[in-house]
């Protein structure tokens, strides 16, 4: 098995993903949390595009287009939820929403 060369875009993707995950775990503002979610998604997209370019096949790029479309819909729903949360409690801080506990 030959060792695959690692491109610089990989490092960017890893950094993006790590940033997204960290933000997701520690930030309290739900809009920021949603944004971190998008960051992680785009890290994955970046790797898909990069490997598709390298292999010279379009399938990864097509998949990315799908992911972006779905992500747009998902963000619309997510923002809708956030808006509703704001209406209920007057804040979008995640710590305010802990009523579902045992």
């Amino acid at each position, binding site marked *: 098995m030959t060792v695959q060369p690692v491109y610089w875009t990989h490092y960017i993707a890893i950094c993006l993903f790590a940033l997204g995950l960290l933000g*997701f*775990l520690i930030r309290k503002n739900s809009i920021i949390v949603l944004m971190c979610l998008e960051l992680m998604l785009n890290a994955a997209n970046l790797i898909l595009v990069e490997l598709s370019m390298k292999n010279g096949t379009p399938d990864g790029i097509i998949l990315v287009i799908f992911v972006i479309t779905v992500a747009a819909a998902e963000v619309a729903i997510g923002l809708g939820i956030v808006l509703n949360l704001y209406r209920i409690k007057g804040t979008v801080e995640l710590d305010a*929403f*802990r009523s*579902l506990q*045992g």
Partner: protein
Amino acid sequence: MNGILGLMILLPLAGSILNGLILRTPFPKRAGVIGTLFAGGSFVCAVLLWVNLMSTHTPVAASTHWVDAGALHLDWAFRFDWLTAVMALVVTGIGTVIHLYSIGYMSEDRSPARFFAYLNLFLFNMLVLISSDSLPGLFVGWEGVGLCSYLLIGFWYEDVEKANAGIKAFIVNRIGDAGFLIGIFLCYHLFHTLTFPGMAESIAHLNGVSPWMLSATAFCLFVGATGKSAQIPLYVWLPDAMAGPTPVSALIHAATMVTSGVYLIIRTHFLFELTPDVGFIIAVVGGVTSLMAALIATSQNDIKKVLAYSTVSQLGLMFLALGCGAYVAALFHVITHAFFKACLFLGAGSVIHGLHGEQDMTHMGGLRKEMPVTFWTFTIATIAIAGIPPLAGFFSKDLILYSSLTGEYGWLLWGLGSVASLLTAFYMARLLALTFFGTYRGHAHAHESPSVMTIPLIILAVGSVFAGLLNMPESFHALPPILTDWLAPVIHPTGEHAMLLPEAAAMGIATAVAFLATGFGLWLYMAENRGTALASLLKPLRIVFANKFWIDEIYGFVFVKPFKQTSLFLARFFDPKIVDGLVLLPSRVCQVGATALSFLQIGSVQFYLLVMLLGGLMVFWFSIKGALI
């Protein structure tokens, strides 16, 4: 003729449905006339079938499909043969007369439609019982009459005591029925068929069946009979059953239902003929029951209780005859007893009706002037039951006692029966004297009953006089033994036995005993003080008899109380703690586990995500661990 057989059985059912479910009239007369008409129609059908049987000599049979399970094939089979004819005529004939009487007796009742519906339903079930051609069919009728007995004993259910008497009758009968059911199963095991002709045929070539098996089968059937026919040890329900209306006591608990045990044994006599050991048990049980019940009857003051114990005693005599193999004698006594005991009960009912519910004989006396018809019919029935010739009771009792005078224990059985007969004459004389002679000791204003009640009394009294002609002893050369000849196709006459006494001597002793005991009883209780003088003389004995040998108390202590205690233990401890505990254990485990683990659910989305991440990392780690090492 099949149609008439169906009609005979179904007419009372139709009457029951019409009265109880459709019309539900609050007028006693209307309900009573409907009930009586349907019972009478059934009687007419029975007479037609009887005439037909006399002319054609072939029993009418009808059957339809019932159960088909594996090797078991059962039909709803009905057959009107010679034995059924006798029983059907007695049941429908006396049943109709008692229906007629009930119109008068229940004239002030609030729910007459219910009463006549039950009474008709009883007739239907009794007819199913006696005309079924197989044991399961008989059992259906058997249970049906038990149900009607329960319903009618507890007819006035507002009175807790009466309702309890009904329950007692039902439960005690269940014990006997358990034996009966086991007997049916054993019969099927032995014969592979449950129809009576089939069983009678296959018993002739039974090979390799142990005599123990046969005896067990016969004994189980006998246990069923002891329940229904009130023999030791299951007789305790019958005296309590007097809580029901008096016509019910006359019809169900004297004339018909309680004789179905006798009928069962006669019907399956081919089995009992092969098991003389069981026969001996039956004879002893019958004799002892007869004696014990007669002793108790001498010390009861409730007019119906005396008659109830008298019924137990007479049934004991019938079983004595059955045990000795004298099936015709037993059936003969069933017939004569049906007449005079129904007459006695209806007479007692007339007295109770005339005295507005008074049942205590110590508050009666001198009623012969106020109630002449009741008095004369009651007297005739008393003479009949006491066994004074030439009335019906003399012939049937004499035949039973004479039949018992054979075999190794003949003297013992004959002695038991004779002493019971002596006591019967005595307590009936006491009953007659206390009720109708002397001076009136009560307060209610006595009056004679209406003719709708006295006509049945007269019919039954006439029957009590002449029923004996059905089976005169051959030595009289007056009439042939009609009943024996009639039943010859069903009960083959057995050969001559060596008798311990000549027939004339046995008859003479029985007659002398009957006369003496009746005379002594009348002499003792006609005067005001003689009876009480004797009672104080025999005080310890009297206490034992008046308390019925404490049998109810003994049963209460030995069976009922432990049963109740066990039930209470099961209800208060075992069921809520152990059974429910086992059922609830899984749910408790889940509850405790869920409470313990619920601290993990803190409501923070980001905490969940962290846990998810850690979980993912662990999955990742375990999946690549192998590749790394």
